[in-house]
């Protein structure tokens, strides 16, 4: 919960929409993990279990004409931005009707027609691209924003520094959405910046180096994320952008593939499981008189069914033919 707003101030349909989208991401990731471990799905995967609130909270502020950029961990962002589970699943299965026609794969899902270019898996590499998209929006006098997702680890890359600075000096409409899940791969964030020292208390404090508004938000509170991103979008549209938002969250699954996460202390993991965003949001939702458990159960069932159907279809979709390797290189 944010400080300013109570759960009772929101529209019921809106709230259940947030819930549904988070559940969709969670369930999607669970299914994909299973398919992957079973060997039915090729490649490698980076999943966002536990981080659903950041994707959903931010993207709920975006219209179809707004944009996002994403990372090696893009499934949640894509679903939150409105890509269908089906087009993503087909892509993950390497199907030719997938959102990238089977050429992208898990780390590069995207659909520009829905405001998401292929996710960029070079850590930090999407941040200049997002900044350039915002520059285009500004030059084209469009009232839209770009939400640029990246992790705590990405803030050490030069690309982050160069791009955020340019967004700052040119007042570009970018929401820099830093998902601080406390680790870059296996490396704790406390090990890659001098936190606690003179002037640097949080990742958000880095925003000050660029003279832009920056804040640290409980990233497992979907409404707090939503409100922060809403404010940020307003600042952007008023020409005061960019805004840096650090969302505190936790990855309750492996970094990639079959990672057993032995570098995450047990107690920390335990605590994180307690504060994962979906359970927390359920508790908050049920404070409302007009939301009952069966509403939530119904949503979960619908999502589960939708996904089962999508998987069944996706797995059977036609694969590319070898000659397709040669197409789509040049426009």
């Amino acid at each position, binding site marked *: 919960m944010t400080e300013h707003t109570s759960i009772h101030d929101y529209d019921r349909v809106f709230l259940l929409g947030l819930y549904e989208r988070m559940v969709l991401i969670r369930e999607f990731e669970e299914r994909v993990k299973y398919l992957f471990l079973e060997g039915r799905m090729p490649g490698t995967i980076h999943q966002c279990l536990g981080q659903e609130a950041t994707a959903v909270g931010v993207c709920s502020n975006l219209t179809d004409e707004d*944009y996002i*950029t994403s990372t090696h961990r893009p499934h949640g962002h894509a679903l939150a931005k409105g890509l269908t589970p089906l087009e993503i699943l087909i892509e993950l299965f390497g199907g030719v009707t*997938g*959102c*990238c*026609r*089977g*050429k*992208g794969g898990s780390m*590069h899902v*995207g*659909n*520009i*027609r829905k405001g998401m*270019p*292929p996710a*960029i898996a*070079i850590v930090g*590499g999407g*941040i*200049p*691209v*997002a*900044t*350039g*998209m*915002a*520059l*285009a*929006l500004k*030059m*084209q006098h469009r009232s839209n924003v770009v939400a640029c997702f990246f992790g705590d680890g990405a803030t050490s890359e*030069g*690309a982050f*520094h*160069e*791009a955020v*600075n*340019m967004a700052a*000096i*040119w007042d570009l409409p970018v929401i820099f959405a830093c998902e601080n899940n406390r680790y870059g791969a296996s490396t704790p964030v406390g090990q890659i910046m001098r936190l606690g020292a003179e002037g640097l208390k949080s990742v958000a404090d880095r925003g000050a180096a660029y003279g832009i508004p920056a804040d640290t938000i409980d990233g497992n509170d979907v409404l707090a994320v939503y409100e922060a991103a809403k404010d940020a979008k307003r600042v952007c549209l008023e020409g005061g952008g960019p805004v840096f938002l650090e969302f505190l969250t936790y990855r309750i699954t492996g970094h990639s593939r079959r990672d057993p996460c032995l570098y995450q202390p047990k107690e920390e993991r335990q605590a994180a499981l307690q504060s994962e965003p979906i359970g927390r949001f359920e508790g908050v939702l049920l404070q409302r008189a007009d939301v009952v458990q069966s509403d939530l159960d119904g949503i979960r069932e619908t999502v589960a069914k939708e996904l089962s159907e999508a998987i069944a279809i996706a797995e059977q979709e036609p694969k590319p033919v070898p000659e397709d390797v040669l*197409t*789509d*290189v*040049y*426009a």
Partner: protein
Amino acid sequence: MVKQLSIVEALRAGIAEEMARDERVFCIGEDIGIPGGWGGAFTVTLGLERAFRDRIIDTPIAENGFFGVAVGAAILGMRPIVDVQYGDFLFCAMDQIHSNASMLRYMSGGTVAVPMVMRAPVGATGRGAQHARNVERFFVGIPGIKVVAPSNAYDAKGLLKAAVRDDNPVMIFEHKLLYGSKGARMETGAVDSSSDVPDEDYIVPLGTARVARRGSQVTILAWLLMLHHALSAAERLAASGVDVEVVDVRSLSPFDFDTIGASVRKTGRVVIVEEGPKTGGVGAELSASIAERFSPSLKAPIVRVASPDVPVPFAPVLENAYRPDPDRIVEGVRQVLD
């Protein structure tokens, strides 16, 4: 109307015309439009900020950043012309160029386009190792990118315009000694590359080579500064009765094997001239491809004349030993005739 222009003037005119024609076109780079400044390191954009203030974007010194910015802007329909002060600094931006500019279209299954132009000056010019490299080799063969390298003002303008209108990332290599920059930015050792340039709109299609001098006994392939040295060498050889054809390769990616092949089939002898270390150069690919495609026509092994496999040295005597010159090209031709 036709005017004699330097490459700098031709590029400047080409950029201005494209910006006037299409408001999606903008320039981005360091020091390109600062009032009282130089219009980039070699005056190409000098004064353009007066006509197009909102579309000449001066950046911080952050190459990877602003190349990425150009990629993002291009994805959303703009047509950036990115200026890097020296080709050497492309290494700073290499990730954005290779991982994003060149591949996003493919990764997206053909749904995203990245129409951007990159302009980079190359060549050894008395500045020492870090402002001197001929980096063409690093971009030839990156799938998704096109590469051109004009040796004269007409081509510079025509290729620039073609590049701006192309829907893909196009790298234009320019040679510092060919610019014809004037005043404080004049280069010692510059070679005249000015040419007649029509006022009317024209393009030089990407992907085309040009026969710069007709001949029958040997084909020299060269581009940028080396094209001029090749022509000098050809003159000299003509005096001693050797009839050399010189092809301005001009398009380094893709190569124009129609034009190159026609020449090779005619002469059967090939000398490839390149500024930059021999090993791993553009000449390697040219040599390998020509051997694959036109072996039956070859009367002698292909000869590469290039720089030695060393960084670019500072002292003039060393730089001259580094940079191929007409003497060494003549030698190369004699070798292929042996």
